[in-house]
């Protein structure tokens, strides 16, 4: 469902060119749970951002469901991001001024759907995340794991084609991390395509496939046994 062909990304740092990504080609199938690993600065986030349409490649092509993500206008890209992609970040990136349920509703609020119409769905999602009691809390009143679960609910509310997570547990302890991974693994089992950047091979072990980046290039591509039985 996602196809990357010879994608490259250059940044200009002053006069110096930084190749964050070089010539990466990759195909992600629907239902896959792909982990991206690699040392710091190897271009993992850059790749994820390209997949999610947060950024555009400086060379090469990216397609989602056959439609190009490269060379399209910012607005078109934004709409794809809004409707087809769910993001989960390391630092949760919830809006501190909004309550949990409002944060979850945000992507649909951007669509212009009235809050009252979205709220039941958001509450349901939060309940599924085990946060039924916490819907009206603001992020500062939540623990890290809870915040991340709110973020997952937010990513899921649009029923995205692909869920992207950038070190989703980088800020959480092992136990809390495990709960998050179990959630993701459950979602994947139900058919959700997931792409996750991680430094943690325990996390990668939940997935179906692991790729490793080195210096912006694809170094390894390991297919793991398969979904849990």
């Amino acid at each position, binding site marked *: 469902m996602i196809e990357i062909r010879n994608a490259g990304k250059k940044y200009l740092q002053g006069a110096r060119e930084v190749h964050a990504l070089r010539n990466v080609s990759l195909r992600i199938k629907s239902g896959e749970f792909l982990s991206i690993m690699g040392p710091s600065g190897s271009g993992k986030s850059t790749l994820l951002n390209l997949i999610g349409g947060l950024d555009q490649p400086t060379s090469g092509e990216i397609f989602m469901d056959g439609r190009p993500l490269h060379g399209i206008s910012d607005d078109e890209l934004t709409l794809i991001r809004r409707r087809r992609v769910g993001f989960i970040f390391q630092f949760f990136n919830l809006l501190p001024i909004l309550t949990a349920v409002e944060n979850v509703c945000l992507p649909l609020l951007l669509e212009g759907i009235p809050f009252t119409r979205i709220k039941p769905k958001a509450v349901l999602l939060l309940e599924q995340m085990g946060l039924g009691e916490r819907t009206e809390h603001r992020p500062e009143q939540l623990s890290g794991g809870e915040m991340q679960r709110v973020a997952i609910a937010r990513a899921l509310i649009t029923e995205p084609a692909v869920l992207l997570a950038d070190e989703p547990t980088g800020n959480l302890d092992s136990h809390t991390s495990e709960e998050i991974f*179990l959630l993701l693994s459950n979602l994947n089992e139900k058919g959700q395509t997931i792409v996750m950047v991680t430094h943690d*091979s325990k996390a990668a072990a939940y997935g179906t496939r692991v790729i490793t980046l080195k210096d912006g290039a694809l170094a*390894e591509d390991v297919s793991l046994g398969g*979904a849990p*039985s």
Partner: protein
Amino acid sequence: MSVKFAMLGILAEKNLHGYELKSSFDEKVGEFWSLNYGQIYSTLDRLEKEDLVTHDRQAQDRRPDKKIYSITGKGRTELEEWLSTPVHKVRALRDEFFIKLVFMDRKDPGPILDLIEKQKAHYLKQMNRLTNRKVSLKKRPEHADSLTAELLMDAGLFHAEADIKWLTLCASKIKATMGENT
């Protein structure tokens, strides 16, 4: 050494005969540790000699009597003492993969780096299997002793992760030092 205490631990919960003891052992720690009946019985003999275990005979129809093993008072004391003492011995550094490293080609890091990657992939796959087991275990929480089983699997995962980390470090250090030689 730990086999002895594992068996004492199992008998401390319940009196069992040899066969039951083996299946209980498999269920609890079988993931990492497999013993055959011979090993079970020889350990039991040794424990009896040390007065840590004793047995009763139970008559059976048309079959030889079953020996039902139970823990003695002395056995219980020694088990408790063992349980409360931290483990001093660290995991063995003697590792088959390490031996391969010792004999690697100092001129050309290529083959060993390849090997490292293969090894990592292997570990990853192993971790994936463990994880899958754990996940399915999680789905049947009513299963007896799922907690200890899970913890054991976690231990396995953490060790494998450590190995992967170590291998990654090996690769980057090898590349850093040997890369500049060539």
